[in-house]
């Protein structure tokens, strides 16, 4: 067999439907953009054998007054590479491109001070 190490390969195969993949990547993107999963729309396409992910949804930005504000493009760039790494790590799919379309910005504090 072509299996490396001492892994015993079990006969059979695993199939992940595109629906399951979409839901997984929606959850990943929602976590990385800091918004609810219901706000995120995902489109998966093929990029010459790699997975191409198109994310569209809002982004959460910290209140303008708070210190340590990253610029929005830098934040989204970081989110894109995080999404790519997470998809490869969790879904096991090699990602070609990640496109992010920000539809809204949610300027809300995560927790209001009572």
């Amino acid at each position, binding site marked *: 067999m072509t299996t490396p190490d001492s892994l015993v390969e079990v006969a059979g195969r*695993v199939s992940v439907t595109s629906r399951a993949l979409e839901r997984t990547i929606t959850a990943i993107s929602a976590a990385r953009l800091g918004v609810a999963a219901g706000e995120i729309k995902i489109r998966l*396409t093929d990029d010459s*054998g790699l997975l191409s992910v198109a994310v569209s949804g809002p982004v959460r930005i910290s209140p303008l007054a708070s210190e340590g504000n990253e610029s929005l493009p830098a934040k989204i760039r970081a989110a894109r590479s995080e999404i790519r790494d997470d998809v490869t790590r969790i879904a096991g799919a090699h990602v070609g491109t990640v496109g992010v379309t920000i539809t809204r910005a949610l300027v809300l504090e995560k927790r209001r001070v009572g």
Partner: protein
Amino acid sequence: MSTDLASSAAAPYRRVLRRSQHRSRSTAVVIALVALIVVLAWVGTESVLAVFGLAPLLVAPAALLHFIDNPDSIGTAAASALALLGVVLVAVALSPGRRARHALPDDRMAVVIDDGVLAGAMVRAAVRESRLPASRVTAVVSRRQGTVTVVPTSGSLVNAAAITRAVETAVAALDPQPQIRATVNVSERGVVGS
């Protein structure tokens, strides 16, 4: 193995294998000869009727000869159709008339396998190795060439070399004659989800 097939002991098998792998011309021959007989019988009948001065069945020989000498557009079309039929018959006679089958070497039997079955075996080997759904793997087998096409799942890398090896092993195990060269194409575009 092919030397076994060629040896004198396997001569009857060789004959059987050849017969199973080539199309018989007898159907074409029978149809052509029956048509020829009907036409000649008709011409003969018309000639005899003309000799005794009786009414022709369809056309009197003299009128037929006149028609052949001065064909109208229908006559030209009919002649062209007959010429085309002749060309087709010559092509059928001269073409190798091979069937899409391969012989499998066997000491005790003459075994012939349809190319579709051979393609199925190649697909099976590729599916086992790649672990893709069987619907994503197709194969086409011609006389000396077997081509397997694999459509990968987007994001999962396909080991084309391993699939090629698996397919070659499967083909080598069957050892079809004439030998076929196996190639594996991994499709440029994948499919999302599996």
